[in-house]
C-alpha cells in the first residue's frame, strides 16, 4: 500500500471520527439532559444546560446573569435557545471547531463568567506536567524491569517483581495516594501540603521549586500505579519475542546472550510498547481525574470534577470534547508511528 497511502487513509478516518465525536458530544450535553431531566415544561434546569455564546462586547459577565435569572422569551431567543435544534447544532459545531467554548456558568476557577477556554489554558500545563512526567517515568522503569524480568524468567527477580507489581496494579489509585500521604506524615512528621496552600503568594523561582516539591507525591503515586501495566505488557511481549525463530537463530549463531536480547529481541518487542505509550498519552486524562482530586492538583482532571460538582455544563462539554480530541490525535499518532516502525503494517 505504501506508507503515504496508509497515512492518508488514517487521516481521513481521523477526520470522520472527529465529526462523529462532535455529534456525540452535542447529543450527550445538549440533547440527553433534556430527555432525562426536563419532563414537561420545567425550564430552570434546562436553561443551564445550554451552550452560552459570548455576548456582544466580549465578556459574559452581566449578560450571564441576565440569562439565568430572566427567562422571558425575548432574552433567551437572542442567544438561540428556543431556535430549532438544527440551528443550535450549527452554532455548536462552529463553536467547537473554533474553540470558542463559551463561559463557565459557575465559578470553577474562582471567577464566575470566566471563559472556558481560559480555564483550560490555565489548567492544562499542570496536568501535562504531572501526567506526562509520570507517564514517561513509569514507561522507562516498566520497560527496563520488564526486559530484565523476561530475561531472568522464573527466577527470584522475575517472580518477586511480578508479585509486587501485580498487587500494586490492583490497588485503587486514591488508596495508594492516601497511603503515600500517610507515610510522608509518619516518616517526616509534616503533612502533605497541597498546591494551592503551599504556593500562595510565592512567585518566580521559589514558585517553580514549590510546584516541583508539591508534585513529588502525586508523581510517585501515578508512576507506581502505571508501572504494573507497562511491566506486565513488556514482559509478556519479550517472552513472546524471545521464542521467535530469529532469536533462536541468533543464539545458534553464537551471539552473546546480551546482544541477542537487547539488540534483536528488544527492538521488536518495543513496538507494542511504543503504541501503548502513544495511546496512554491519550488516556491520561481519565486517570488524571482521580489523582488530581486526591492531591488537589489544579489540572484538567480536577476541572472536570469541579464542573460536575458545580453543574457547569459548558465546561464539561468543552472538557469532554478536548479529551476525546486528544485521544483521537494520540491514537492517530500511534498508528502512524507504528506504521513507520513496522513495515509489515503499511504493506498489508
Amino acid at each position, binding site marked *: 500500500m505504501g506508507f503515504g497511502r496508509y497515512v492518508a487513509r488514517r487521516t481521513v478516518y481521523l477526520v470522520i*471520527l472527529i465529526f*462523529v*465525536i462532535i455529534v*456525540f458530544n452535542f447529543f*450527550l*450535553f445538549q440533547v*440527553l*439532559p433534556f430527555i*432525562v*431531566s426536563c419532563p414537561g415544561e420545567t425550564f430552570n*434546569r434546562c436553561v443551564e444546560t445550554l451552550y452560552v455564546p459570548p455576548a456582544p462586547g466580549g465578556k459574559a459577565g452581566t449578560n450571564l446573569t441576565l440569562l439565568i435569572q430572566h427567562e422571558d422569551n425575548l432574552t433567551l431567543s437572542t442567544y438561540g435557545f428556543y431556535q430549532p435544534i438544527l440551528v443550535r447544532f450549527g452554532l455548536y459545531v462552529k463553536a467547537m471547531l473554533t474553540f470558542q467554548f463559551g463561559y463557565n456558568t459557575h465559578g470553577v476557577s474562582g471567577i464566575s463568567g470566566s471563559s472556558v477556554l481560559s480555564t483550560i489554558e490555565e489548567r492544562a500545563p499542570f496536568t501535562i506536567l504531572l501526567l506526562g512526567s509520570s507517564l514517561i517515568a513509569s514507561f522507562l522503569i516498566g520497560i527496563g524491569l520488564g526486559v530484565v524480568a523476561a530475561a531472568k524468567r522464573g527466577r527470584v527477580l522475575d517472580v518477586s517483581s511480578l508479585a509486587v507489581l*501485580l*498487587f500494586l*496494579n*490492583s*490497588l*485503587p*489509585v*486514591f*488508596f495508594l495516594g*492516601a*497511603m503515600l*500521604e*500517610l507515610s510522608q*506524615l*509518619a516518616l517526616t512528621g509534616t*503533612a*502533605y501540603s497541597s498546591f494551592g496552600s503551599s504556593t500562595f503568594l510565592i512567585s518566580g523561582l521559589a514558585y517553580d521549586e514549590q510546584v516541583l516539591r508539591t508534585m513529588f507525591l502525586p508523581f510517585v503515586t501515578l508512576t507506581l500505579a502505571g508501572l504494573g501495566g507497562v511491566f506486565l505488557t513488556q514482559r509478556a511481549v519479550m517472552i513472546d519475542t524471545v*521464542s521467535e525463530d530469529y532469536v533462536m537463530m541468533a543464539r545458534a549463531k553464537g551471539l552473546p546472550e546480551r546482544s541477542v536480547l537487547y539488540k534483536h529481541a528488544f527492538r521488536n518487542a518495543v513496538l507494542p510498547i511504543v503504541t501503548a505509550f502513544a495511546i496512554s498519552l*491519550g*488516556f491520561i*486524562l*481519565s*486517570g488524571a*481525574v*482521580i489523582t488530581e*482530586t*486526591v492531591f488537589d492538583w489544579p489540572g484538567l482532571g480536577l476541572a*472536570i*470534577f469541579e464542573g*460536575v460538582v458545580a*453543574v457547569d455544563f459548558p465546561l*464539561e462539554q468543552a*472538557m*469532554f470534547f478536548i*479529551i*476525546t480530541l486528544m*485521544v*483521537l490525535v494520540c*491514537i492517530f499518532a500511534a498508528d502512524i508511528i507504528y506504521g513507520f516502525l513496522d513495515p509489515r503494517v503499511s504493506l498489508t
Partner: protein
Amino acid sequence: MIGFIIIAFFVLMAVFAPELGQNNPVTATDLATPLSPPAWAVIFPQYRDLIPTYSPLPSADFNTKAAIGAWTLSGQNYTTSFTSVGPVDYFPAYTGSMLLNASITPRLSIWNSSTPNPQLPYGEVFFSMSRSFKFDHAVGQAFNFGADVTEEPLTMVNVSDIYFDFIISGPTGNWSLASVNGPALQPQIDVNTNALGQGWNQLTVDSALITGTDVPGLGNATSPSAAIFNKTGTYTLTMELQAVPCQPGGSPYSGSCVPGTNTSVSMLISEVDFHIDGGAYGLLGTDSLGRDVWSEFVWGSQVSLEIGISAGVGAVALGTIIGLASGYLGGIWDEILSRGTDFVLVLPFLPLLIVLSFIIQQNPALSANVYEWIIFIFIIISWPAITKIIRSQVLTVKERQYVEASRAVGGGTWHIIRKHILPNVMGLVYSQVALNVAGFILLEAALDFLAISIHSIFTMTWGIMLTQALPFAVTASNNSYVWWWFLPPGIAIASLSLAFVLVGFALDSIFNPRLRAR
C-alpha cells in the same frame, strides 16, 4: 489457585453478610466511642489502656424478680412488684418490668429561679434506685457513656411531669448527669404530651451531649468521662425520679398546685442501663460516627461483588454477541459494527462515566435508590474491548476446516455459531469476564471516591468507607491513622481485584490459543 481462595472468601462473606454484620452499617451509630480501634488490639501496648465496650451493670433489665433485688430502692411511700409485662415493640423484647406505685408529698413553690437546687429542680424525689459497680480501668480516659431507662407511665394523679436524674457517685464525688442547667438533657415524661397508656418510652442521658455547664462541678472539662472517672474504685449509679405536682398544663415555675392527699404515680420500669461505649470495640473498631466497621466491611462486600460481577458478565455478554455477529457475518455488518466499536473504544471512560452519572443524577426520580444505572453505564463503556478480542478469535475459527465442512453439509448460520464457533470462543470469554470484573471493582471504588456513584443512602460500599476514612487517616496521627478503618477496604478491593486477575490469567493461559501453542 490463590485467586479462587480469595474470591471464595469474599463471596462467602457477601452471602453471609446479614449474619456476620449484626449492626446496620449506615444507621447504627455510636456503638462505641467514634474512631476506636478493634477490641483485639488491646494486646498491643499502646492500646492496652483502652476501655472495652460493655455494660457495667449486668442484668440491667428487670426480667426476673431477682434482677430487681440487685438494686437498692428507696423513697417516700412506695411499693414495688414484679410483673411479666414488658415492652414488646423494642428490640430485643423485654419480658418483665417493675411495677412502681408511689404516693407523693408534694411541695409548694418548688422552683425559685434565684436559688436553683440542681438536685431537686422541680419536685420531690419520691423514688430512687441505685446500684454499684467497680471501675478499675485506666483512669482519665475519654470515652462515651450513657444511662437509659425504659419505662411506661400508667397513672399520674395530680402530677404533671416526672423527671429522671442519673447520678454517679464515687471516689471523685457526686455528679448529676441530668441537672436543671441542661434542660435539653432532662429526660422526663410530660403527662401532657405523653398520654398515659400510650406505651413505652426510652429516656437517655448521653455523655457525648454533655457540655461543661450541664453537669455541676464539671466546669470546663472537655471530657466528662475523664473528669468523672478519674479514680479507680466503686461507683454507684443512682436513678432518681422527681415528681412535679402541678395542675396539668401548668408550669413548674408557677407553684400553683394544691397538694393533696391523693398525689400518686404508678409506672412500669423495664430497664435501667448504664453502658460504657469504650475505646475499643468489635472486630474492626468504629468509624467517625461510632458505627461498626466490621459490619460496614461485610455489607460492602455485597455491593462490590454484585456490581463487579453483573457488570463484568453483562459487558462480556454484550461484547461476545456483537463480536460473534461482526466476526462471523462479515461483509457490511462487520464494517458497520467494527466502526461502531472503534468509536466507542475511543471515548475516554472516566470522563464519560462522570458525565453520564452526572446527567442521570440531574433527575432525582431516576437516580435514587438504584445502582443498576452504574452497571448499565459500565456495560455501555466497556463492551468494545471484548468485542475486538472475540471478533479476532471468531475470524480465526471461521476459517477452520470443520466449519467449512459444516457449511458444505448445509448447516445454517445459527447452527454453526452455536456448535462450532461458540465453544472455541468460550474460553476467551471466561478469562475476559474475570479480568473485567477486576477492573469494575476498582472503577466502582473510584466512583464512590469521587462521590458520583449512584446508590441509595442506605448502602455502604468499600469505596464509601475509604472515602470517609481518608480525611481522618491522612491527618490524624492520633488514633494511629485509624488503620482499622481504611486498611481493610483498601486491601480488600486490591486483593479481590487481584484475585480475579489471577483467575483471568490462569484461564487465559489455558484457553488462549496463542499462548497454548507455545
